[in-house]
């Protein structure tokens, strides 16, 4: 697959992943653009790996966690407005959803990344540990703390999330 084909097919999925990871569309655009710029230069190598999209997605996580992202914009572009129309049972669920997005945004980066990689991307803890450069026990500890900060009760009924690819 050449680079232009990859971008045409996978950029939307990368943007969704980066937006879930960063919580902000403007930051997600920055991250994805920077990562694709770097991936372009290494495409000969990346296209030869077993799962190029997984590789590029790891680059997105690394970019989000790296020092480059500690210098934020002085004036970030306005983010996309929350969806307020035609939602489920109405105001209560929207409020709970928006509050959850707010709590996600307040998580430390590593905790947020661990939660997203497990519950959005569906990665096993061992792979998350490799991605974050820590032990599996640390991943589980990070997720435990994150879920507490997100005030999520795991004993309540739940469904598996299917990442939109």
């Amino acid at each position: 697959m050449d680079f232009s084909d990859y971008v045409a097919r996978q950029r939307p999925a990368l943007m969704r992943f980066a937006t879930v990871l960063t919580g902000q569309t403007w930051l997600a655009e920055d991250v994805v653009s920077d990562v694709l710029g770097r991936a372009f230069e290494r495409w000969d190598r990346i296209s030869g790996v077993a799962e190029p999209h997984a590789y590029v997605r790891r680059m997105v996580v690394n970019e989000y966690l790296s020092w480059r992202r500690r210098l934020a914009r002085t004036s970030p572009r306005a983010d996309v407005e929350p969806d307020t129309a035609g939602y489920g049972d109405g105001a209560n669920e929207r409020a709970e959803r928006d509050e959850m997005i707010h709590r996600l945004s307040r998580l430390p980066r590593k905790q947020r990344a661990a939660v997203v990689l497990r519950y959005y991307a569906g990665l096993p803890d061992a792979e998350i540990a490799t991605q974050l450069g820590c032990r599996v026990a640390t991943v589980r500890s990070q997720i435990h703390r994150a879920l507490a900060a997100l005030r999520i009760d795991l004993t309540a009924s739940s469904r598996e999330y299917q990442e939109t690819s």
Partner: protein
Amino acid sequence: MSDMRALHDAFGELERRADVASLGAQPVLQQPRRAFGLRLVPVAATVVAVAGLAGAAMWFAPGGDDGGVGAASSGTTSSTTIVVPPAPGWTGMPKTADELIAQFKVVLGDTATFEVTDTGSAVNGTVPDHSVTNQPGSGPDVPPPTGATSVTSMPNDDGARNGAAIVGKLTAAGVTGGFDLQIYAGTAGETDTCAVYADLGSCNVTTLPDGSKLMTGVYELQVQGGVTYHAQLFAADGRVILMHISNMGDPKGAGGVLGAQPPLTADQLTAIVTSNLW
């Protein structure tokens, strides 16, 4: 308490926002390919200061030599994870770029000049009424902003951190290169690890005599011949001091290659971030 449904709904909403944003974005191939670089709002005025390395606590990474980085060799990384201790009720933390510039002048002394072209700090936000103030003897008192007063501050991941950042060019001994410098109050439990920089170059973590952690790295940039030195101090008192110096116009890889080497050696960079004059 929420259940996982709320988390999944949050993911779904963030995906929707991504799709909306993508509708308005140009395809990446229609844009000029850009190196990863800072996209900051330039400040109206620049500051040129004559400074140098003097009076600083000169601490060098073990095994370091001029231009080297501690015991690092090309391609080596450390998996040591740094955990930031609880930040104190911060005193003396620069809350504006001007304060950071003033402190940087003191630390550098009189052997280098620097020009600030961007305040690479953060989202303008409201500092809460309980924001920190300087304690007596630590410097000029800065009254805390109150109410809706907006200040430029470094955001923590939870929006609470304070600090400042500056970006620009630094010249020493006739050699010029891009730099960025930021100081902020670390979050208790915040971690960092060389693993996230594994694709950039060499990175090492060292424990200093006072228990602080020092992360140093040498990163090869996308542009041929571009190199950036990285030094980041996770101080025992919770401060984080981070500085990059490059032989390119910008440490992130933009602005062209200005010289064969950055204007400061890796050891000089380390001495700056570990200086007791901060």
